[in-house]
């Protein structure tokens, strides 16, 4: 009797690399061709053309670590910002609701690159923190606004009866939110958050302009010394591609696990 269960309407927010779908079966899926193709291509370049490419592959890995740090740091912080702002967006308190909505509207109306410059230099004016940290805060502040909309949609996708049932058992609104609504909403928002993670991984390349030595920055450094622009950016693009494809697969596996897990 599954038909009596509340149906979570799937929400579709965000962009980023397409997360492979379960129905994508067969040996030659687009994901497999792209993922294994780029790995093979990397190996071929590194070992087949070692004089041009080997040095690049030796030079850029520090950047991968930084890119990864920025992405993970920013997504975690963005989830915090997004959850707070998302709850604010559904609050009946006018001030809280207004503030949260203003944050979302302002942030979404300014290009990410402009925001990065702005927040980075604004932060730099008042506090002395490492470049990478201010880059993370800037990215998170921006992505938090998009995340807020995901959380808002996710919370609102939970049937009203759930809140009413919790309230009628004597729970306060915040108890009901924590115990009943959010645990269900997290499951709904996981796919779009996964999408945001992939998008953020790619957008993290923007921090290379902020003196943060991420993957792209390391590539630029190498290219400007060696003048091997084409070769360097080929490698950089391949590494980004492998990372996004890897994580999109990981996220889709996590989602499947979560859906089977009950």
């Amino acid at each position, binding site marked *: *009797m599954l038909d*009596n269960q509340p149906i979570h309407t799937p929400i579709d927010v965000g962009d980023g690399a397409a997360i492979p779908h379960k129905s994508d079966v067969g040996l030659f899926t687009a994901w497999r061709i792209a993922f294994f193709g780029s790995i093979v291509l990397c190996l071929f370049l590194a070992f087949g053309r070692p004089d041009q490419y080997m040095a690049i592959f030796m030079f850029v890995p520090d950047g991968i670590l930084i890119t990864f740090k920025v992405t993970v740091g920013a997504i975690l912080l963005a989830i915090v910002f997004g959850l707070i702002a998302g709850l604010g967006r559904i609050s009946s308190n006018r001030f809280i609701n207004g503030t949260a909505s203003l944050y979302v509207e302002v942030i979404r109306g300014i290009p990410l690159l402009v925001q990065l410059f702005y927040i980075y230099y604004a932060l730099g004016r008042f506090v002395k923190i490492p470049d990478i940290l201010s880059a993370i805060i800037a990215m998170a502040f921006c992505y938090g606004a998009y995340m807020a909309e995901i959380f808002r949609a996710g919370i609102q996708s939970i049937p009203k009866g759930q809140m*009413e049932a*919790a309230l*009628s*058992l004597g*729970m306060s609104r915040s*108890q009901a939110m924590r115990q009943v609504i959010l645990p*269900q909403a997290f*499951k709904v928002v996981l796919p779009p958050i996964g999408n945001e993670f992939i998008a953020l991984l790619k957008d993290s390349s923007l921090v290379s302009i902020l003196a943060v030595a991420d993957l792209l920055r390391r590539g630029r450094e190498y290219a400007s010394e060696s003048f091997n622009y084409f070769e360097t950016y080929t490698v950089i693009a391949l590494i980004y591609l492998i990372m996004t494809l890897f994580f999109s697969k990981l996220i889709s596996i996590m989602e499947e696990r979560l859906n089977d897990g009950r």
Partner: protein
Amino acid sequence: MTVASRPMIEVSGVSKFFGSFQALNDISFNVSDGEKVVIIGPSGSGKSTILRSINCLETINSGRICVGGMDVSNPKTDICKVREEVGMVFQSFNLFPHKTVLENLTLAQTVVRKRNKNDAEDIAMELLRKVNIAEKASAYPAKLSGGQQQRVAIARSLAMNPKAILFDEPTSALDPEMIGEVLDVMKTLAQEGMTMVVVTHEMGFAREVSDRVIFMDHGRIVEEGTPEHFFTAPTHERAKLFLSQIL
């Protein structure tokens, strides 16, 4: 006047608007301790709205509702305290799908009543046995039939030891063969002396179990009386028409 001598639920002069639509028009009735009141009427007559107003899931525009001496309509009243004392059973069950049957029963006990986990589980198991579904304690609601879910929902509300339970069309979403098992549980509760306010279309239940029937139409109470009176000799034309259509 002492609290004990007052009715458990007092509804006096309640009106409620949804925009310009008047859902409730000057509704007054009392429910005393241990009394079973059934509210019937055509859809859109306001019967669910008045029920939901009693535990403040709807706010009323005028009038007064008191539950156990607490004024629900007063914004200063701690509404959670009222809801602790008044259980509610919904048409759509509203079990928590991310929690097992047992956890559905223990959640509010531990969070609201501050019982420890073991006590809460003992109480929960006892109630699940009472509604004949103890074997499903570790199952998730999605694995249960509608009738089973509704019995769990009743047990969940009982776990809070409410002084009264409100039933909002508890059998309307059920397949016909499952209605009986839910009504049986409700009859047992009635026999044990639980104060109940039931919105339902189950006339058999109303006739057999209730002490009083309230018939509503267009947001007003049209007729009120014993089931005997209501089902055999209704005075109002609208009630006669309704009964001729439904019986």
